[in-house]
């Protein structure tokens, strides 16, 4: 037996919750320079399904937490992202991307307007480059800080709200994509109603020294079980959400990736972000390729880098994320295809180990989003 799809083998940083993962019997793996829990003894399938029916606790402290503040911070950030940051209301958050001059994506991120600051959550693999981009881009005109002293804990699932509300009474009333300061286990936390699973849920930012207490009180709730990066990946894939470095990267534009919804009307009219030439041209005329959901027939998972063929057997694209969807009960995938093959229902073939597996283009997500209705 040999794995064809292994993980990285770089020595690792640890998060403030590392000892908790080890004590819970997690399988720890290197991920973007950190030792992270892939799964706990229950396994990825059970953790995934538990998240969809109850609530799961995820340590995502490897992600970068950066804040920017000072007069003109929102204007300054708009020079680097196509999202509407100036229009971001206090206590609201929004998804956007750092774009490059060629209209590709340097990283994707969440921006929260809270406490007089813009708080950014960025991908672990990109966080140092993002910090440099902000510092160089702002030239000292706006203050920037990386918060390596903070942990990030996600509580996700239909019962997340009930579990969190026992410790932070305001949690149940918090609106979707809204942020609030709360006390959890006596610690100051910034809580957002957001996540990466397609379910209702929260992301909780706390100082590292409080992370274990917050983790412990939430894990002690009867609805809550721990879940690792394996379940996080299968949950976000079923939810049709992009994974940076796979579904989006320096070559894919936000329009091709189906992220046009994250570029506000004013930004489309005014431009003023990196790569605007390509991005605005694609908005006007349509992109040459599109990210789509792909449903393989049968049981064989089609993994990342699987070639996509049209009915004539010609290459028309490539899978960027693919695997088994536990809630779907079968294989699911996302990938890029030529615009001519992007319509739902289009019949495709997937070249897996020399055989062509029939598949079709489907609308994302695979599992309906169940976010909190405000």
């Amino acid at each position, binding site marked *: *037996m*040999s*794995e*064809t*799809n*292994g993980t990285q083998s770089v020595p690792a940083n640890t998060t403030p919750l590392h000892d908790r993962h080890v004590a819970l019997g997690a399988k720890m793996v290197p991920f973007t320079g950190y030792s992270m829990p*892939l*799964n706990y003894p229950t*396994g*990825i*399938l059970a953790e*995934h399904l538990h998240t969809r029916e109850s609530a799961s606790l995820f340590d995502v402290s490897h992600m970068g937490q950066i804040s920017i503040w000072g007069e003109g911070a929102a204007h300054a950030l708009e020079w680097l992202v196509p999202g509407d940051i100036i229009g971001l209301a206090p206590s609201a958050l929004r998804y956007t991307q750092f774009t490059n001059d060629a209209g590709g994506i340097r990283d994707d991120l969440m921006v929260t307007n809270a406490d007089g600051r813009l708080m950014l959550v960025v991908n672990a693999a990109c966080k140092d480059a993002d910090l440099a981009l902000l510092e160089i881009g702002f030239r000292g005109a706006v203050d920037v800080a990386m918060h390596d002293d903070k942990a990030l804990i996600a509580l996700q699932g239909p019962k997340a709200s009930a579990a969190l509300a026992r410790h932070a009474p305001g949690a149940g009333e918090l609106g979707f994509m809204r942020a609030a300061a709360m006390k959890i286990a006596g610690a100051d936390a910034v809580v957002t109603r957001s996540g990466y699973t397609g379910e209702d849920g929260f992301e909780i930012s706390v100082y590292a020294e409080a992370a274990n207490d917050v983790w412990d009180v939430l894990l002690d709730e009867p609805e809550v079980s721990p879940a690792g990066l*394996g379940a996080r*990946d*299968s949950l976000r894939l079923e939810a049709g959400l992009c994974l940076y470095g796979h579904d989006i990267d320096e070559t894919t534009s936000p329009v091709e990736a189906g992220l046009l919804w994250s570029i506000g009307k004013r930004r489309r009219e005014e431009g003023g972000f990196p790569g605007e030439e390509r991005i605005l041209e694609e908005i006007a005329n349509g992109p040459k390729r599109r990210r789509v959901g792909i449903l393989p027939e049968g*049981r*064989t*998972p089609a*993994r990342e880098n699987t070639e996509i063929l049209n009915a004539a057997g010609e290459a028309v694209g490539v899978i960027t994320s693919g*695997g*088994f969807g*536990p809630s779907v009960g079968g*294989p699911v995938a996302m990938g890029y295809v030529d615009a001519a093959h992007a319509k739902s229902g289009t019949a495709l073939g997937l070249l897996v*180990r020399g055989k062509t597996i029939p598949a079709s283009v489907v609308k994302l997500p695979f599992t309906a989003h169940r976010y909190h209705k405000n």
Partner: protein
Amino acid sequence: MSDLKFSNDHEWLRTEGDTATIGISDYAQEQLGDVVYVELPEVGQKFAAGAQAAVVESVKAASEIYAPAGGEVVEVNAALEDDPALVNSDATGQGWFFKLKLDDAAELDALMDENRYQEFVAGLE
């Protein structure tokens, strides 16, 4: 001690006459996690010892399975099509993959008995 023999690649083999049943070890299924699909060979296919004969897919990855000895496939475990999780729940029993009519029983001498395999696995931890 069991009648199983093991390869370095974590396949097991159990012989009855000149036929051998093949699967993956309990250690292997634990490393893989939840098995969601097994691509089995076809009856009549012939493999040399060490040749890729099947693929096992977990939620996170695809792994190749090698024939621990050479031979011709005489039967495959159709139950894995509907219930691939048998590989997790009963790796050395109901979770078997395929049966080979062996070319040369002397090839089995290169495999480990269960005690040696457990030592080998302990050395990997």
